[in-house]
């Protein structure tokens, strides 16, 4: 059955739409994820390569 489903949906029209959705979906997800990050945390994370990055 899996093979039949694949045979039926594997047309480029559908693939084009799916890849567009995946592309935008992926970016929207990442953007939402990034926007929700706390600014203070970003400052902390970007200072990690440096020695004095502890928070005492």
């Amino acid at each position, binding site marked *: 059955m899996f093979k039949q489903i694949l*045979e039926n949906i594997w047309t480029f029209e559908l693939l084009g739409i799916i890849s567009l959705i995946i592309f935008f979906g992926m970016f929207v997800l990442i953007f939402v994820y990034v926007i929700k990050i706390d600014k203070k945390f970003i400052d902390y994370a970007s200072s*990690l390569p440096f020695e004095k990055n502890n928070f005492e």
Partner: protein
Amino acid sequence: MEHSVPLQSETNLESFRYDNKIVMLFIKATVIWGIIGMLVGLTIAFQIYIPALNFGIPWLTFSHIRPLHTNGAIFAFVGNGIFFGVYYSLQRLCKTRMYSDTLGLIHFWGWQLIIVLAVVTIPLGITTGKEYAELEWPIDILITLIWVVFGINMMMTIIKRRERHMYVAIWFYIATFVTVAVLHIINSVELPVSLLKSYPVYAGVQDALVQWWYGHNAVAFFLTTPYLGLMYYFLPKAAERPIYSYKLSIIHFWALIFIYIWAGPHHLLFSSLPDWAQSLGTVFSIMLLAPSWGGMFNGLLTLRGAWDKVREDPVLKFLVVAITAYGMATFEGPMLAIKSVNAISHFTDWTIAHVHVGVLGWNGFLTFGILYWIVPKLFRTNLWSKKLANAHFWIGFLGIIIYVVPLYWAGITQSLMWKQFTSDGILQYANFLETVTQIIPMYIIRSVGGTLYFTGAVLMGVNLYKTMRGGSFLAEEEASAPALAKSYREPSGAIKHRILEAKPIPFLIAALIVILIGSVVEIVPMFLIKTNVSTIAAVKPYTPLELTGRDIYVAEGCYTCHSQLIRPFRSETMRYGDYAKSGEFVYDHPFQWGSKRTGPDLEREGGRFPNSWHYFHLDDPQSMSPGSIMPRFKWLLVDDADLSILPAKINAMITLGVPYPQNYSNVALTDYNTQANTIVADLKNSGIIVQPQKKIIALIAYLQRLGTDIKVTKPAPK
């Protein structure tokens, strides 16, 4: 850099030592293998227009050592570059020593052993014939083991870290580890015939898809993601300021690893790969521009307000050019994945120019910059000569320009010549050789560029050696950091994403899932849906003699210069014959479509010339094609084909689904001799005396078979 947010309450300070010895071992290996890899590259850059520079030695011939150069640049130079960078930065980002010194040493010596085995086997023609995956099955297993050792050492280091959050560089390292493991294992599934010979289980168009899914992602996850990790660590260190936007780096990471994995089929545009797969490759390649340039801008903008330093500091100079080269290569890549551009660029030197912007510019210059930064630090001294480093920068930079510009010129010129018709509608340059001799001046200039770049690398070797001699090596570096509290609660206003980014194993699994999406969508249908690989009744398995000849074709590296894929363009069908159909390659383990036409396509070579022509041509190409730059393969006239494993080869093919009659391996040798004697007799009529067991007989049989199964009309001569 001071911050006031208490993210965790650790007070018990622990002392430990960073292991710099393992870093130093990988640094030395990077410099030594880098210079050797470039020297091999330089050799083939000269050999391409002076083929006699192989001095008649089989293992020194262009087609034997070109794969050595590509493997050397990728896995020996960049590979060791990845490892020294990871071992240095990971310890500091995790505030801990590497998990195990022993695993580190096994990793180091194991990796060097793999390189040495490659240096021995590839020139000797012990090869799978799959680009950047040429190593035979015992070495493939060794690579897997050593890679796992590296992975365990890295993941355990991350697990026992003293820093709660994993910095973005570590994400890139984790994605590199898991993806390279998946790529290597899936692309290397092969059936051993003997200790040094195997056949890939995939054939034809399926093998092509798996190979270029691997090949493209070797670029993505070996040459790119680990080096981006290094960029995110070493650029802020060298510029003494944090990365421009950490948020952008998060987008860069997830978008890049998700999209990159889909792009492989852009290496197979206009091939007999199904259209849906080609289109996916194009679409996702174009998408790649977004995260790639996000990363490039993130790197360059990190230097905002520090450009005065760039004027002075050779380290930053190298890093800036590296990141710019990354931006150029990742702009060009998506453009080359557009079908109308690819129609011109593919199979030409344009591709060679493109990859060298990446490897010489991005990987090379990033490595050099980091080396100039790290070696004085490890030896507690200043760089021996800043002047020499600046000289290296300019020599290397000029070297890249003088390398790539002529090749862009050569690629476009040759492609346009291939496609040029006269007003009467026939090919203007019907003789392929005309399109080669036209671009030889470009090859000469390219070798000058390569010489400059190589010279720069040697100067760096001297500079680093002198720096080491002048300093004292800090093998064990004292450090201290508070232990991580066992129990940990997110602070109020919880930052949900840290659930993932503070836990290495779930992170690894998440990265694995992300890269598997594209892989599964592209590869699984190719194997499950029959219409993706149509069969052609007229296509029959190779005879034992042809199969042996095919193995010789692979071992001699013919695929490095000859494609076997006629694209559906009038200019190609007129020159070479009917375009390629997927059903023609169903018995091709491995596929031999090639990626570069230094010589003409051979897909329908069969029957084009008499046996005697091939005999003389392989002995001395210039005797048949004056001005040809193909090297002589005269050893094929005197060496015997290895028939001891012929029955095993036939049995392996039967196991892989090639429809030979039952127990055919018992009579294969008889059939071999019968067909060989026919060719011997034909050659005798042309005055050539040769014994049937010689390699050249098998190779001629294979060449004469090529494309004849469905060949209908004889095309115009090449």
